[in-house]
């Protein structure tokens, strides 16, 4: 015998409750709907929850600084910049939906942000289908300016290839050509591995050990015990985030940091702060730094102001993440201003190829062929305890590498990247 799931009375109750819930939701949006109609809304997607919450926060601070700087000068074409933030939760599915919401509901004129590569790729795809600009400020995978490139996608931070080449040549010169790699066994690690293999081939060196550590490895001891037998000149640690902290801590406990030089493609201040001082060793690629003439450029007023203002406003010095946010929004705003338009195609044309000076040493430009920001990258030695009076001053910048020397050539890129302007 079939029985009704809901009697009419229950249904009415349910419908009433549902409407009440929806009505409750609407007021949450009124502040956003009621904003000044002339503002230029930029959608900011960052992983405010999850493992990358630290970098997310710092990128956001960089974005905010740039927005404020422009708004103080009257905004873009007289319109104020408004940042509309959404938490992409480090989840490509959520990011895709938030991107759609930002473009379709909040009417943002461009999307910026993201930290993890999967999310960057997902948002790039959605942005492309919606015909909206997306500037990837913090996702490093080569594919964003490689085989998944699009006319509407740009990338500020350095690519994985740039990371390996900036540090690879430096490490080979400084320590030697017998390398031992500790590589995370997933996409990011594989691409780093490929990059380093390219460098080692060019300098005629050898990889004497390549330990692929699977996802979820918290204990690296089984891999570390193999290092002695391989007798490397330098140990390259390719793992990132929590894994990086675990690995270095354990290397220190096994006494390996005293025995072998250590280095790697990239390190950020955020995870370094979580590493005990005795494990802070080695030479690493860094993408920007707040306290060196090599990274900021001698006498670069803009850069020094940026650093000072960040410290004043947020209580701590900016990291490379702040720089990504700042440069991204600053250049986006400049391009809109130059193009005198917010039309994505016009703005894209106005971004690419334009050389500019900013808060870093020298000049940079978003390359026309793949939309990668070509700016220098640096290698730094870690100062375990900072400098006297500044516990944040963990980097002693030693080398600078020009973008063109470390990124793939235009010819190489054009084989995989087809921008596809409409």
């Amino acid at each position: 015998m079939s029985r009704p799931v809901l009697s009419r009375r229950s249904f009415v109750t349910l419908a009433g409750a549902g409407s009440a819930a929806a009505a409750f939701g609407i007021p949450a949006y009124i502040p956003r709907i009621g904003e000044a109609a002339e503002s230029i809304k930029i959608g900011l997607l960052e992983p405010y929850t999850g493992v990358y919450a630290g970098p997310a926060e710092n990128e956001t601070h960089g974005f905010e600084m740039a927005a404020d700087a422009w708004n103080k000068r009257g905004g873009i074409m007289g319109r104020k910049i408004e940042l509309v933030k959404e938490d992409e939760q480090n989840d490509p599915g959520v990011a895709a939906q938030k991107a759609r919401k930002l473009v379709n509901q909040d009417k943002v004129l461009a999307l910026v942000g993201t930290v993890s590569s999967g999310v960057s790729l997902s948002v790039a795809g959605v942005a492309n289908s919606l015909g909206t600009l997306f500037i990837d400020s913090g996702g490093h995978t080569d594919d964003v300016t490689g085989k998944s490139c699009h006319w509407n996608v740009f990338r500020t931070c350095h690519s994985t290839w740039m990371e390996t080449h900036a540090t690879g040549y430096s490490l080979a010169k400084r320590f030697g050509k017998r390398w031992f790699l500790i590589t995370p066994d997933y996409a990011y690690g594989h691409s780093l591995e490929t990059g380093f293999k390219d460098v080692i081939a060019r300098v005629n060196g050898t990889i004497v050990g390549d330990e692929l550590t699977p996802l979820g490895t918290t204990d690296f001891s089984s891999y570390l015990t193999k290092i002695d037998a391989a007798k490397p000149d330098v140990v390259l640690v390719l793992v990132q985030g929590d894994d990086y902290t675990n690995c270095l801590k354990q290397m220190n406990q096994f006494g390996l940091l005293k025995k072998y030089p250590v280095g790697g493609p990239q390190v950020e201040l955020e995870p370094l702060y979580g590493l005990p001082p005795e494990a802070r060793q080695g030479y690493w690629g860094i993408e920007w730094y707040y306290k060196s003439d090599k990274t900021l450029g001698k006498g670069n007023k803009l850069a020094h102001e940026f650093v000072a203002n960040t410290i004043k406003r947020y209580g701590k010095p900016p990291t490379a993440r702040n720089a990504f946010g700042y440069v991204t929004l600053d250049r986006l705003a400049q391009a809109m201003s130059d193009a005198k338009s917010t039309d994505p195609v016009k703005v894209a044309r106005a971004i690419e190829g334009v050389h500019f000076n900013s808060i870093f040493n020298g000049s940079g430009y978003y390359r026309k062929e793949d939309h990668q920001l070509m700016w220098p990258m640096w290698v730094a030695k870690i100062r375990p305890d900072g400098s006297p009076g500044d516990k944040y001053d963990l980097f002693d910048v030693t080398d600078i590498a020009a973008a063109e020397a470390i990124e793939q050539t235009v010819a190489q890129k054009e084989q995989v990247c087809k921008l596809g302007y409409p």
Partner: protein
Amino acid sequence: MIHDLGPQLFNGLVLGAFYAIVAIGLSLIMNLTGTINMAHGSFMTLAGYLAYSLVLRGTSFWFALIAAPLIVVVVGIVVERTLVRPLYKREPFYSLLMTFGLSLIAEEVYRLIWGPNGVPFSPPASLNGALSLGFMSFPTFRIFIAVVLVVAIVALALFLTRTRFGLRLRAAVQDTEMIAALGTNTQLLYAVNFGLGIFLAGIAGVLAGGMLGLSPTSGNALLMPAFVTVIIGGMGSLFGSIVGGLLIGLAISLTTLFIPAASEVSMYVLMAVVLLVRPRGLFGEEGIFG
């Protein structure tokens, strides 16, 4: 290869000892009331963070090693009385879900209190060196972990076999109704049992904080291996958790030598195999799960 085997074996045993201590805590909680504590990792992380904060305020590492777990036990008992107790009559998967929700809250709370990046927690200088064992150089801290484990197990064994409370606990695992009928305060039993499991989690958490990184998401990585250990060793058997832990540690270490790609997934394959072939695990006893 043989020359590599020695260090890997030793390594695996010590690693296994660590998994064992986490698994025993889980097992204690599971055996008596059928509660599957998905927040076990969160309690561990809390202990690590508290130890870090205590040391930051000037206490010694040794003090923090005991004090932090004790504070976490208090939190644990509060959780047990308010959130876990209502679920005792229900099927195990309810506690699984509820504690899963708890772990989500905990992660965010830790992020709010201690920040989104990790915190630099390290063992005291006296434990930070390495011991030369001839065939390899081994971190003192890891040996310390093994020592702590042995002490904890011996203490637990003594508690369970030599004290009246321990006796009641063991009796309750076998037949709670009967022991209640005999006049024991079962609610107190449940609370203390849970507290005991959390205490072990706390100790493991402080040790993990010293060995690995300490961040809001630290707890997650250690939770699954602990569950796998309990399943393989046998639900209902503390001895099984020890053996299971050692086996897992060895398995992970040795597969690293032979098939590195498989080392983390081998854990789950092993888990599936055990569940299929002998769900009670190696030493499992008749318990909550039938």
